[in-house]
């Protein structure tokens, strides 16, 4: 930490440091930020922008950046803010980290901060005729301002940029997303193969895709804003409705984050149970993505196979958590109840069945000529790009990135279990598919070890720590990430330490993996057939409610 401070101090003398938190916090004035960011990326190898969080501190509006060095896995934390609330402007870093493009649009949408030199300043989640910036603390929520509008959005093609010249004068340049002569086709928002309510506008030439414009926000529910008016245990509920295919994992992440802030020790048994649940969830998620990917290519039978095995996992959840989906099982300090007496037996059985069936899956689909032709060499995402666009999870590993949070920043008890990180090289649809298939085997490996660990703990035990009735966190901010089924899921939690009768988070941000995944749709689909848009997006495998939050 100390040498970062020295290095950054040399690069940018105006920077202020605070080493009291988990990571070194660097506060930089906006004018110096772009230069420092360039140096951070090129000289200090902070090439992975882990999170970009907009925050409203009342007197200031600003952005928190979390940067990771993919070689050493060191992380630093940068704060850039402006006091101008009327026309807040910051410098964009989307030219350095491509993932910042969409993330800055999100911040613009929520806080109205405009990014200078950003190529395409449009709203991301909300309609372009939306009034106000909802995540600002002084946002007017009255329904008269923003009624339910049942007319179509106008002027979707209009965008603008803020261009800065050498003297620092900023001018606004209007532009169009698509030129008039381009042939644009619309996919979605209600289309069966977009796996939810996602909309693409693809410009095509003949049958080749030239550019894809992602129109998101059809399931944007404003979860982050709602969390600011709930107590900590209440916020847990929303995590399961982000990526519902990694419900346990997301919830685990927020629990870990709050526990970290409280300094709470979780009983070992609880951690084992949590880890088992996480892996079951991952298994179930990969089975679903197998089912969907195959169905998108016309192999409907395979879809039924995937779902047949998922029912086994649902049964396990049902017995222990009392629900098939949205389980609400983990809680701050542990889990809400001990596992069902049959739990270990069921998990072992599930492992055996899935191991057997995986062979069948491969026989049925993996080697199939049609599948191979449609997936091999299609939609290639290189390693550089994957890091630049912060693509993690199975899709990132298919491009050769070492990005499994369970290995890079071990949490829970993952350093006690033995498993391999599946990394492939080609980054095409086939590899993305194969990573998931292989990861299922790893899941099973972990699950078997979890069963052993749980057996060693005995039949019963302490499954929840002593937690105070009212949870109060000191002032500060925390960032926690876990490996979701689709990539690194992160939670940014900020508390103002205000001991009101019920303490609420000042800012809670979910850094969802799918948000980054959708950023590469344009890149991977470019110069591919329009028909392959479906297979590529299916192999990237995102969950729309996770993008939109």
């Amino acid at each position, binding site marked *: 930490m100390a040498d970062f401070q020295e290095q950054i101090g040399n690069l940018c003398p105006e920077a202020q440091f605070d080493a009291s938190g988990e990571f070194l916090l660097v506060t930089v004035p906006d004018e110096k930020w772009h230069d420092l960011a360039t140096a951070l990326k090129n000289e200090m190898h902070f090439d992975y922008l882990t999170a970009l969080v907009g925050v409203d501190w009342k007197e200031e509006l600003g952005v928190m950046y979390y940067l990771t060095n993919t070689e050493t896995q060191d992380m630093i934390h940068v704060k850039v803010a402006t006091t101008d609330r009327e026309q807040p402007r910051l410098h964009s870093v989307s030219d350095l980290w491509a993932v910042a493009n969409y993330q800055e649009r999100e911040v613009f949408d929520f806080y109205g901060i405009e990014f200078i030199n950003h190529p395409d300043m449009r709203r991301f989640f909300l309609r372009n005729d939306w009034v106000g910036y909802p995540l600002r603390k002084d946002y007017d929520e009255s329904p008269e301002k923003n009624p*339910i509008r049942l007319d179509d959005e106008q002027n979707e093609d209009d965008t603008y940029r803020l261009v800065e010249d050498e003297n620092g004068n900023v001018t606004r340049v209007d532009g169009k997303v698509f030129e008039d002569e381009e042939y644009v086709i619309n996919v979605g928002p209600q289309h069966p193969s977009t796996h939810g*309510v996602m909309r693409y506008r693809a410009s095509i030439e003949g049958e080749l895709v030239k550019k894809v414009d992602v129109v998101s926000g*059809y399931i944007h529910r404003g979860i982050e804003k709602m969390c600011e008016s709930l107590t900590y245990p209440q916020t847990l509920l929303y995590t399961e409705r982000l990526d519902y295919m990694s419900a346990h994992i997301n919830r685990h992440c927020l629990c870990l984050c709050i526990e970290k802030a409280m300094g709470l020790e979780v009983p070992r048994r609880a951690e084992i149970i949590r880890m088992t649940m996480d892996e079951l969830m991952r298994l179930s998620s990969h089975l679903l993505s197998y089912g969907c990917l195959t169905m998108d290519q016309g192999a409907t039978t395979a879809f039924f196979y995937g779902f047949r095995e998922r029912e086994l996992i649902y049964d396990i959840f049902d017995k222990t958590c009392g629900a098939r989906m949205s389980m609400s099982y983990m809680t701050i300090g542990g889990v809400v109840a001990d596992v069902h007496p049959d739990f270990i037996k069921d998990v072992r059985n599930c492992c055996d069945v899935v191991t057997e069936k995986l062979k069948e899956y491969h026989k049925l689909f993996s080697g199939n000529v049609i599948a191979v032709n449609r997936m091999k060499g299609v939609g290639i995402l290189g390693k550089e790009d994957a890091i630049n666009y912060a693509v993690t999870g199975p899709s990132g590993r298919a491009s050769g990135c070492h990005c499994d949070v369970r290995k890079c920043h071990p949490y829970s008890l993952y350093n006690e279990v033995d498993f391999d990180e599946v990394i492939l090289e080609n980054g095409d649809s086939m590899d993305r598919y194969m990573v998931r298939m292989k990861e299922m085997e790893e899941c099973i490996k972990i699950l078997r070890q979890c069963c052993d660990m749980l057996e060693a703990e005995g039949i019963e035990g302490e499954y929840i720590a002593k937690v105070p009735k009212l949870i109060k966190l000191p002032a500060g901010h925390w960032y926690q990430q876990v490996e979701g089924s689709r990539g690194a899921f992160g939670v940014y939690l900020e508390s103002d330490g205000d001991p009101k009768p019920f303490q609420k988070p000042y800012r809670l941000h979910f850094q969802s993996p799918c948000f980054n995944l959708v950023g590469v749709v344009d890149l991977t689909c470019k110069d591919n057939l329009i028909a392959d848009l479906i297979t590529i997006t299916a192999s990237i495998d995102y969950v729309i409610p996770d993008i939109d939050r």
Partner: protein
Amino acid sequence: MEVKIKSMKHEDFKDNEYIDKLVEELNASGTNVVVGKLDQLINWGISNSLWPFCFGTSCCAIEFMCLGAARYDMARFGFEVARNSPRQADYIMCQGTITYRMAPALKRLYEQMAEPKYVIACGACTVSGGPFKNSYCVVKGVDEIIPVDVYLPGCPPRPEAMFYALMQLQRKIKVQKFFGGVNRKEKRKEFFESKQVAPTVEQAQDSTIENLNNQE
């Protein structure tokens, strides 16, 4: 410790005061034998081949997929032909939150469906906004935009509950009047008038035509 779960009794399952009332109302003025029989025949046909329109926006959609998969297998009831085009479907099963941005699309999809059309609000979100009731951009129940025939609570509802909702819809259809059954359409008109929402696509078109005429 044994947990006793009270399951629904068969009589309760069959108990439908509300539908009984509907039947009474419908038959209040008596029925013509021929028309009545034809009604029955048509309703029997419709209710046993209800084709859903795949409209899943969020978590509930996954449970609906389970309904289509092997264990629950909704094909047993004639629901299996899930359509991707609203023009071929009989009912929308709204699975998942509807946000302000999605609202116009849902409205339009509903308008595109052919008569007779039905709506099931599946899950807490579509019934009332559910966990997202306090949000700045979530529609608090789809019945703010389109008329709903069956409300199905749950977050998400279990597949069994989904079956119950679907069968409830079947029952409703079995007693409706197809011939001379203007009441459904009337009600719908009333519904849209009472909601006083922004003009529909058709109305907007009408008004532009009017404007054009005025200009001439």
